[in-house]
């Protein structure tokens, strides 16, 4: 991998085979959740203003590329941080600018991650009118005590109200985020959360097993009461069962959707398609190059003030890496990958089949739900040894 101090040295040139995704990172929160290691800092209106100005500049800079007029943006995802800190007008400005610099497809999927405490009916409606057609609500749990321990700023009741407000505002594509494997969360507690959230009738559900990554408070300080592997595994399986019974498709390791409501933006990642990364720490993939913006907001703003693209790292994928990535990412989806992509790993495929971790049908290889659960162990085997 190449780490370059001169980001301008890399040329980002999309192949344009597919519409691009665009990930926009909003790096502020009112309060950092205790499990969170993402690139986010405390929300201050002035900092937000300065950042938004820089973000517009980044879109402009991107739009200057000679290919900008030739590509279409098919999905936009505002992630964070807490994107629902944005006023509808601010969001509108950003979307307008994206549409002006690049072609935004009329049917584009535009998602905003929302925290329940900052989502009102008015805001949801404002977002919808600005062009947002999908909201992803960070609910995490419906256990009041747990929400406090996680450092969340909302109660289960407020989460439900936020969801209903979005519905009232006419948003017909709603996703809910949940986390299992939380401290002192037992199986009945988890099932209550899942049942509760499914009862709201979201189109989409994401459920992640808790991981304590470096940078999170719990990683640094430690946390008591983490459930054992058996319990976490049981939570995964009960979620899979409850979601299936409620008519959801388990279409990606951690994602469930009603028919026709898969997240198009996330599928861009898993299909190894191209996307822009905008905002501090955002990652992009263009023309075989994976790149990441600098993470500190200050630095990000300063670079754009100075007229440079804020790219901090980039990596030009080798053919072998690309091949490995495509299989690994593709296998995250229930669609799997064409059998031919794994032809050189026939003995592995055979043994995974025997273990019930993988299925082969219609010339495609798919991980089973058991395979999803062990996917990291499987993916390691699909990497090519480093030369």
């Amino acid at each position: 991998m190449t780490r370059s101090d001169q980001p301008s040295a890399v040329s980002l040139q999309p192949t344009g085979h597919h519409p691009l995704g665009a990930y926009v990172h909003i790096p502020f929160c009112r309060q950092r959740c205790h499990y969170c290691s993402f690139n986010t800092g405390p929300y201050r209106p002035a900092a937000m203003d300065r950042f938004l100005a820089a973000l517009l500049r980044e879109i402009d800079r991107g739009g200057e590329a000679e290919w900008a007029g030739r590509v279409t943006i098919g999905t936009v995802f505002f992630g964070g941080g807490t994107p629902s800190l944005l006023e509808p007008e601010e969001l509108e400005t950003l979307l307008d600018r994206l549409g002006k610099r690049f072609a935004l497809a009329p049917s584009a999927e535009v998602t905003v991650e929302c925290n329940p405490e900052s989502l009102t009916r008015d805001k949801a409606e404002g977002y919808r009118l600005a062009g947002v057609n999908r909201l992803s609500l960070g609910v995490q749990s419906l256990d009041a005590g747990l929400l406090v321990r996680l450092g969340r700023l909302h109660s289960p009741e407020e989460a439900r109200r936020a969801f209903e407000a979005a519905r009232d505002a006419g948003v017909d594509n709603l996703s809910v985020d949940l986390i299992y494997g939380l401290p002192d969360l037992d199986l009945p507690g988890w099932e209550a959360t899942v049942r509760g959230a499914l009862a709201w009738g979201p189109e989409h559900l994401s459920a992640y097993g808790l991981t304590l990554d470096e940078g999170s408070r719990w990683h640094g300080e430690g946390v008591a009461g983490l459930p054992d592997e058996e319990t976490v595994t049981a939570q995964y399986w009960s979620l899979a069962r409850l979601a299936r019974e409620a008519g959801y498709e388990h279409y990606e390791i951690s994602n469930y959707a009603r028919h026709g409501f898969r997240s198009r933006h996330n599928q861009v990642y898993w299909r190894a398609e191209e996307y822009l990364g905008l905002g501090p720490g955002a990652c992009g993939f263009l023309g075989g190059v994976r790149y990441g913006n600098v993470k500190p907001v200050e630095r990000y703003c300063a670079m754009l003030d100075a007229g440079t693209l804020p790219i901090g790292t980039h990596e030009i994928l080798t053919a072998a890496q690309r091949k490995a990535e495509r299989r690994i990412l593709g296998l995250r989806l229930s669609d799997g990958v064409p059998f031919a992509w794994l032809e050189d790993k026939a003995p592995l495929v055979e043994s995974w089949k025997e273990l019930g971790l993988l299925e082969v049908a219609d010339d495609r290889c798919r991980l089973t739900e058991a395979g999803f659960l062990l996917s990291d162990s499987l993916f390691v085997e699909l990497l090519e040894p480093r030369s």
Partner: protein
Amino acid sequence: MAPPPRIRNFSIVAHIDHGKSTLADRLLALTGAMDPKKAVDQVLDSMDLERERGITIKQHTVCLPNRARDGQEYTLNLIDTPGHVDFSYEVSRSLAACEGALLIVDAAQGVEAQTLANFFLALEANLTIIPVINKIDLPQADVEGTRRQIAEILGLNADDAIPISAKVGTGVPEVLEAIVQRIPPPAGDAAAPLKALVFDSFYDPYQGVVVYVRVFDGRVRRGMPALLMSNGRVYEVQQVGVFTPEMKPVEELSAGQVGYLTAGIKRVADAKVGETITDALRPTRAPFPGYRDAKPMVFAGLYPVEDTAYQSLRDALEKLRLNDSALTFEPETSMALGYGFRCGFLGLLHMEIVQERLEREFGLTLIITSPSVRYRVVTTGGETVEIDNPSRLPPIGEIDHIEEPHVRASIFAPTEFMNPIYRLAQDKRGEHRSLEYLGKRVHITFDFPLAEIIVDFYDRLKSISKGYASLDYDFLEFRPADLVKLDLLLNGDPVDALSVIVHRDKAYEKGKALTEKLRAVIPRQLFEVAIQAAIGSRVIARETVKAIRKNVTAKCYGGDITRKRKLLEQQKEGKKRMKQVGKVEVPQEAFLSVLRS
């Protein structure tokens, strides 16, 4: 050199640490053969490994000029002997080159196991034995008690013992005088056909093998065609000389004399200890009795940790063998450990020395399988095969019975440690032979299967006796035993490097210990791993490594695929040192930790 009547050929023998080297240095200094400082340097130069370990494996033979009290010039040839049980054959050959031996006993320790072993070797060689009581300068020295032991245990005349301090020099002149007075001059006929005994050798890159000889009859000089009677080879003698202790060429060596010769011999294995050298044109009638190939007794697989070091290991072993005729090796492949060599050693110490030299002098890092002995397998077809690698054992159905080598071990210890020693012996399948009370100490002899001795016997003996017990042993014979091959299987596939041959009574215990150990070091896999210890098809111990339940990073946030892939790549890197047994991945450390037990 003095004429034969004024030559004395002698050795010094002792239990380890009783002062053999110190006395040798003293004698050298006193006769002016070498100044003491230089003596130390010389020994250091040649084999610092021995020095560091405090064991003399090979010392140098030296010819000491000495003016005795009768005013005559004498030549005293000090022939050194290896100081460890692994090398008792070599000791016996060195003693065969002498007429007398100084038997040192530490005045503070008394007679120990190797004192006795060496004493018997000296008796067998018909030597005049001069008992020397050393370290009389120590406050805890018990000269009278030591005298008594010399009389009672060794049956020597206690009045003949010379009390000395090799360290400060007291009594050392008396030792020199006793050598002259008590040890007979060499007999032998200088006019008879040449008959010389090889008692040591070393490899010199310029001259080839330098052979240490004691001439019994005849003479040897440059240009003579020398016949090596055990292998029938003839070499032209290029140089003869003596050790002063530097090598000093002389015209000839004749009956009674000790010195060296070179004859363009390529490997020490071509002129082995115990060999008889004679004149090819006028050969002597019969060679010296007692010649035998130094037979390796202990075997182990040596594998380079890095697969790429195989060739370097081979080269290193070749080099060591130039100078070590007892070391044997042949290529061996292990499913689990890759390519390596099955090596044979005289004993555990020999094995350690070779290992250390390979690692230190050749910079190799090695995995060594647990040491085993050579078994004799008598097949149902009546054939006898020798097996030094458990994984080569024929299938059970073809085995009529197995014989294993036994040793006779002699242990000296204070009486208070008798019980634990008997318990240890029982645990090690020892058969009691004799018990003798010697005041506050006992001398016990047992017959042991060699295999039991080479694993952790000596360390345990030392630890249960607080370091006071001493041990010596000698090969006895092969005896039939109820032995079985214990295989370790991972999901049904045998791990060849971990097979062991054990006594049936111990198989269960061993199998349990090994499976438990493996369970602790084998990481969880996608499937359950059954670890089994089995005799043939019968499983006698089993452990399970449960399948891994989940390993998933659910979130790939904001499309940061690079980070995700790097984490996976790191895991991949970590798997490089895994060896595959069937489908099971076993980390190299797992082998190491099991083999170390």
